């Protein structure tokens, strides 16, 4: 069995390593070794599920997942609903803890997005919990829950309308006391569909000629609002998400294929454009919203 080591810290900064490693992993049954996982955020959890599902589709067999040894990490994965989705993707031993029935501190558990009804479910769920978190942790006004819900709705619809494959969404609040000195909310939305290049290819590739690539497709959608639909009312979701994230001084990055594009504020040193990643299907969106200063 081939072994893929999961980074000890699996978050928005390291998830590309995992996705890249998944692509280059040798053929045959794969083991995701997460025994040394010490820290994981929604990007890490959703990325791990996505990597597993890509491997499963490629090889036709469930990859194996070695669970984290750290009981806190295991418990957190459980609270985020990781194992509910993982059981369809990975084979793993039965150490995975069951979720407690008490009140949860989770902003948005890992939720599969397959159809529009799932988007409604996400918005319903967020309505019930997000207001308190956004106000108490981020210091946002009460009305921010509406814009937060709109962001989630648009970004999840992106999966349904463009990916033509299922995906996952998750969100949680963290105290980035060392990194930023304040709380943040991290949102992750990922799918393993056809990606931005695939979605835009028929309508826009010819115009770009030999410059057409994952980078130009991402720029076309992210910066210029291009969409595969001829309807001029389409394509504004990503644009408006960018605008709202900017208003909150947040960061948004989208990986698709071999490139990742981002709108990064001054507190984030992530490069705005990365190319030359390993080709990974679909699109992977990370949004980080910091507390008001």
């Amino acid at each position, binding site marked *: 069995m081939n072994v893929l080591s999961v980074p000890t810290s699996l978050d928005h900064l390291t998830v590309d390593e995992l996705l890249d490693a998944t692509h280059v992993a040798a053929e045959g049954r794969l083991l995701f070794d997460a025994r040394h996982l010490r820290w994981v955020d929604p990007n890490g959890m959703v990325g791990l599920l996505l990597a597993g599902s890509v491997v499963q589709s490629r090889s036709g067999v469930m990859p194996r997942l070695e669970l984290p040894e750290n009981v806190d990490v295991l418990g957190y994965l459980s609270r985020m609903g990781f194992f509910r989705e993982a059981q369809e993707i990975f084979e793993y031993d039965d150490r995975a803890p069951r979720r407690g029935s008490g009140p949860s501190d989770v902003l948005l558990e890992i939720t599969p997005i397959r159809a529009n*009804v799932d988007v409604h479910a996400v918005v319903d769920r967020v309505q019930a919990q997000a207001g308190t978190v956004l106000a108490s942790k981020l210091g946002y006004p009460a009305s921010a829950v509406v814009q937060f819900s709109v962001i989630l709705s648009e970004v999840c619809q992106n999966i349904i309308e463009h990916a033509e494959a299922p995906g996952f969404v998750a969100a949680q609040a963290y105290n980035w006391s060392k990194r930023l000195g304040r709380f943040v909310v991290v949102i992750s939305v990922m799918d393993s569909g056809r990606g931005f290049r695939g979605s835009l290819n028929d309508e826009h590739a010819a115009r770009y000629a030999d410059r057409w690539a994952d980078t130009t497709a991402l720029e076309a959608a992210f910066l210029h609002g291009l969409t595969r639909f001829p309807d001029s*009312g389409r394509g504004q979701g990503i644009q408006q998400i960018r605008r709202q994230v900017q208003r909150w001084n947040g960061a948004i990055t989208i990986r698709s294929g071999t490139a990742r594009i981002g709108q990064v504020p001054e507190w984030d040193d992530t490069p705005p454009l990365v190319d030359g990643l390993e080709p990974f299907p679909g699109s992977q969106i990370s949004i980080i919203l910091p507390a008001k200063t």
Partner: protein
Amino acid sequence: MTDVPLDPIAIDVGSLVKKTVTSLYSHLVTRPTGRAVRMAIETQLLGAGSRSLSLIDLSEVTILDFSCADEVVAKLLQRYLEVDAQEAFFVFCGVHEPHRDQIQVVLERQGLVAVAETDTAVFELLGAPDDLEQRAWLRLEERGLIGKDDVESLFPEDEQRAALNRLVDRRVAFRSPISGRYHALSRLVRHLL
């Protein structure tokens, strides 16, 4: 005979959403939901005759995303601006701060304008009016009604009068086919609020 051959109707979008989707809340999210709600509104207007004025009430809608705003506001307006469409006028009420940005964005993107009640008894022209249209609309809104004989004095320049008539063409002001008087749409729906 009345000067305004219109019988304004109120359409509660919140209740249409509840009939359209299974949700505990009145969330106007996802494009198929918006499309279904728009079609429900269009169905209601089928029986409204060749000329209608509708008050589209968004006050019970909690979340309105951009896809739905595009369907329920922009595409609804576009549909009735087509050459062969019935003459339909719309006023959107309950357009408070949480919805305003989404509606403004979709109207601007499609080059449309719409009359909206943005606070209690406060009406604004949202979307993409030019300066002359904006000023003409504000003057009409202040007065509520402008008689045919007052047009020359209130709008002395040709371009100002042209702007007033564009408001009628863009369906954000009503000119009576009987008297030629101009009516602010807000005045015509006030009794429904």
